[in-house]
């Protein structure tokens, strides 16, 4: 009996540990480093990058950030816990080189897949929050990403919670072929059920969101928020240029362009993101 108790305690301890260690370790930039802004080339210290939420203090360029950093910026401290963190595929991947790629992505990001899903509080308001990570195989959506997103949506539906998904993805994951494609249908159907219950879904589109993710859950939000200058579109720019035989302007498929074309509700800078999301949640009567 005592043995069983100890075993369980050890399990809970290790679980709590793994839960805690995810937060507040800004992995992106080591302490001794300066990092130039990729846009204006201004040299900025790591401390400043972190304080400014990875936005260039000189030109306002929004650096791509990891899923955990995104969650840290949106959710209240120590309130976020992952759901179904350990979902893995039971299918054997027979695509050559894919397992190795997955392994490298897992080790370099410390994530099991390209999305982190869980529940947290945003200025005290409970919500399901999912964040994709473009460092993990370009945030591509395979079976596991689709499954985790779907489970999160179903979790939100059954508990009558709002859901926020921060997208960052190059599209469907080619290596998983048709299974990846079908995740577009699966996630969209789950969102329809969530919507039919009168619940709120907000999308936060970040750089880049294209292909299969843009043509499914990214574009289905009741409210669609985008970060400044994020790439948003279905087809890749090069494919379009080849098809129409002209060069596209640099602002093509960027947030501001998509806002002008009518597909984005609002563009929000990172420093205003949490307060804007909070306001929108309150306006939808979410407590």
């Amino acid at each position, binding site marked *: 009996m005592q043995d069983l108790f100890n075993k369980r305690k050890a399990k809970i301890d290790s679980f709590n540990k793994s839960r805690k260690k995810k937060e507040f370790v800004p992995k992106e930039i080591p302490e001794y480093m300066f990092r130039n802004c990729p846009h204006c080339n201004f040299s900025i210290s790591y401390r400043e990058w972190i304080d400014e939420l990875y936005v260039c203090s000189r030109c306002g360029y929004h650096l791509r950030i990891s899923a955990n950093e995104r969650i840290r910026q949106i959710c209240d401290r120590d309130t976020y816990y992952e759901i179904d963190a350990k*979902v*893995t*595929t*039971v*299918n054997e991947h027979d*695509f050559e080189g894919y397992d190795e790629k997955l392994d490298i992505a897992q080790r370099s990001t410390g994530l099991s897949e390209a999305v982190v899903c869980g529940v947290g509080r945003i200025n005290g308001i409970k919500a399901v929050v999912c964040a994709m990570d473009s460092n993990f195989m370009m945030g591509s959506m395979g*079976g*596991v990403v*689709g*499954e985790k997103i*779907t489970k999160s949506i179903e979790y939100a539906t059954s508990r009558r919670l709002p859901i926020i998904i921060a997208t960052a993805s190059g599209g*469907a994951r*080619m*290596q*998983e*072929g*048709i*299974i*990846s*494609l*079908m*995740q*577009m*249908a*699966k996630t*969209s*159907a*789950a*969102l*329809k*059920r969530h*919507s*039919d219950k009168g619940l709120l879904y907000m999308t936060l589109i970040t750089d880049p969101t294209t*292909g*299969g993710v*843009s*043509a*499914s*859950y*990214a*574009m*289905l939000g009741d409210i669609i928020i985008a970060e400044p200058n994020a790439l*948003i*579109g*279905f*087809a*890749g720019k090069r*494919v*379009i240029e080849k*098809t*129409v035989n*002209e060069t*596209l302007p640099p602002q*093509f*498929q960027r947030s501001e362009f998509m806002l002008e*074309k*009518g*597909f984005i509700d609002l563009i929000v800078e990172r420093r205003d993101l949490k307060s804007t999301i909070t306001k929108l949640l309150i306006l939808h009567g979410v407590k």
Partner: protein
Amino acid sequence: MDYKDYENLINKLLEQKSKTNDEKEKEAIDNEVKRMMMFAGENLTAWDRVYIARHKDRPKAYDYIKKLFPDFIELHGDRYFGDDNAIVTGLATFHDMPVTIIAQAKGKTTEENIIRNFGMANPEGYRKAIRIAKQAEKFNRPIITFVDTSGAYPGKGAEERGQAEAIAECLFEFSTLKTVVICVVIGEGGSGGALALSIGDKIIMLENAIYSILSPEGFASILWKDETRAKEASERMKLTSFDLKNLGIVDEIIKEPLGGAQYDFEDLIKRLDRSIYNSISELEKVRMNTLINRRYEKYRKIGAYE
């Protein structure tokens, strides 16, 4: 040897046959052609099926509509922007019952393909599909979709008018549409552009049709940066009807005549007609809530995880 090479040989033989008056030689050629077709037809690779699925003589959506629904009335436009000829929608009678048809229509000739944009829809095509589907739901008509596209059109205007949003909206709306939806993959089912019209209660696929995340050329170019490796890509993509049936994505395969649908279209139509009719009759008996839940589960279970 690819199927295409056999086809060339057969065409040469047939040309030879048309030039000769010797009955014996004609008979010999017929036998040789038959033998070759049998051999080629029974040893089709995935790449052969890609070729057959895209064949210019392969029946297109309009051929199916003409045969299956002779009283078809076409309805046009998305009521926002325009009418997309790459997606054809309308009403017809099918076994004494009114039905709604939504079809991706490739052309057969170059002129027709220019009008139909080679079957690659713009956002207004998908929005027309949603409008017509909702109309079907309102009047409780079964919907039959025909899938045949290499993908949604990757054009500048398509992006500006929200290609991604239009496709997402199809996936969203069809998932709970309160009427029976039957999808028939007749040729090429490529990417999200094909998926948009593949959300239904029963997915029927012709034997030599293909269905995939992307064209084999696109797949090879993304993964290996080499479009010419399309053949190799096709063999690994699990894009044939048999692969998709094994994966549980397709419910029924309709056998094609040797060489492809065009070789005995009447016979194929008979079997397809029966299959669609049986599917509708069966699904019409199911309670609406059950139907919608089953449709949800159908897509929900794709991919196995723990």
